[in-house]
């Protein structure tokens, strides 16, 4: 839960501006926005690593720094959480485990879970980006937490790795773990998340279910016919594209477009509704000076 969070860095940069959202327990929530939107800063405020200028960021009603032995409650993997290159993955996990009074057998368990057992005694310096991501997930899982906060876990993963990550997230969710996962690429998390929080320039642009986001988007109507370019459109409609006798019209329903074509006696070969493409919608929402912003902004989520 994040309330009116604002973070201004000393350099005068406002990374997060009056941001409020909440992630539902027991769900996978995608935390989306383009690079530089303030995702990482927000997550770091939530985890007590960065002190916010104003506002509050809490997990189950308390701040991270108030939690006793926090990694047993909240597991986190952050982009810039490194490991000493000369240390092995097992030693990296062991040093964290001992500080949190977690047994070494749990270290072996999480290495197995993320598929690093074979490489566990190799130095992290020789790891690929994908292996480092798995190690970061192993760190997050170490305390068997009921909340997972993952910052760009798909970054640097190959398609196989992304597929593995999806399975991993779904498995965690099925165990009742609440997951907040950030990404700048919607498609990475699209198949896994229940809800999405979308931010741009440190401010919220959308919070709610992925499904509601699609419905709220602008509908498009595809019409095709030999003389369709002669179709006269009423003021609020707009012709998005014209090619090979096919026109895409926005701002109108399929019935309205059909009636207009009928009234103007135009021959039609196709009349179909096209639901908004999620990726396009996401890009539209997060682009600077986005015109679609207003139509979706403020549409509350289930909570």
């Amino acid at each position: 839960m994040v309330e009116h969070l604002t973070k201004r860095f000393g350099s005068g940069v406002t990374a997060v501006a009056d941001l409020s959202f909440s992630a539902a327990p027991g769900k996978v929530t995608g935390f989306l926005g383009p690079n530089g939107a303030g995702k990482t800063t927000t997550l770091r405020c939530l985890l007590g690593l960065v002190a916010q200028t104003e506002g509050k960021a809490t997990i189950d009603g308390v701040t991270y720094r108030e939690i006793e032995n926090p990694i047993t409650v909240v597991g986190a993997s952050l982009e810039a959480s490194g490991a000493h290159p000369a240390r092995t993955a097992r030693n990296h996990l062991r040093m964290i485990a001992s500080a949190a009074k977690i047994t070494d057998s749990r270290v072996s368990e999480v290495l197995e879970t993320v598929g690093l057992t074979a490489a566990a005694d190799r130095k992290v310096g020789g790891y690929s980006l994908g292996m480092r991501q798995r190690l970061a997930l192993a760190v997050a899982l170490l305390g068997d937490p009921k909340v997972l906060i993952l910052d760009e876990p798909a970054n640097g993963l190959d398609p196989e790795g992304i597929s593995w990550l999806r399975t991993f997230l779904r498995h965690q969710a099925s165990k009742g773990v609440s997951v907040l996962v950030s990404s700048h690429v919607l498609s990475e998390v699209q198949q896994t998340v229940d809800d999405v929080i979308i931010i741009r320039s440190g401010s919220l642009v959308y919070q709610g279910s992925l499904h509601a986001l699609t419905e709220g988007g602008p509908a498009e109507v595809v019409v095709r016919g030999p003389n369709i370019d002669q179709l006269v459109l009423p003021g609020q409609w707009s012709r998005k594209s014209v090619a090979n006798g096919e026109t895409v019209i926005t701002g109108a329903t399929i019935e309205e477009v059909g009636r207009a074509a009928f009234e103007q006696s135009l021959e039609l070969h196709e009349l179909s509704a096209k639901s908004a493409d999620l990726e396009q919608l996401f890009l539209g929402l997060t682009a600077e000076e986005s015109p679609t912003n207003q139509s979706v902004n403020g549409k509350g989520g289930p909570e």
Partner: protein
Amino acid sequence: MIALIRSEFRKVFSTKLLLILSLAALGFMQLQIFLLVFLSPPGLEDINRLMDPAFIKIIVASAGSASVFLLILGIVAMSGEYRNQTITSTFLTTPVRWRVIVAKMVTFAILALALSLVLWLIAAITTMLLLGTQDSAPFEWSAAFEILGGTLLGLVLYAILGVAIGSLITSQVAAIIIALVFTFVLEPLISLFFLSVGKWLPGNALNSILQTGSGGPESSASDLLDIPVGVAVLVGYTIVFAVAAAVTTNKRDIT
């Protein structure tokens, strides 16, 4: 706290840092002992300093030259967490940050204690063996024992000071350069021209504890602070730096 110290020990022993700096400290110390035994300082060629028991004590006190290595050990261990970004996992695991700093200080104090004991013993034995080959006053273990306490205390405080400096200046390169420039340039320079000021600096407070001189040509231990005052000054520096480290670390944004 025990768990955190255990974690710190695991951190130290999973990299080669301690081994490398210990060997460097040992090599530097042995070099200094050889030079002190076999070379007379300029202008004092016609006096056999080795006949002076006080000078023999200064040779054994070469163990104190490990101070700069323990300072760097502390600096590298702490600033290395920022450099390798392990500080994120460390503070996620232990969000009450001063506890991490205290655990690290305790860990390096223990390591420094063990290392300085070993170095003191090697220094004493080396001095004893080398003096056996020279025309000198007899080696006395009692003299070596007189500086044991000072060596242990001084080196432990320097290791703690290193951790504090590594928390204050998190850029590893900057922290090491500042520490070295201060130790080898600024402090000797101030001591040379203004010993009345210089004797209050950490390096000379350490020298007073080790009962060596300030290193200047006509220097002797009597120019420096009395041992209890030297201890108080060095402990004071350590406490001030440690508190400053805890306060600044608590406020720092980990990005």
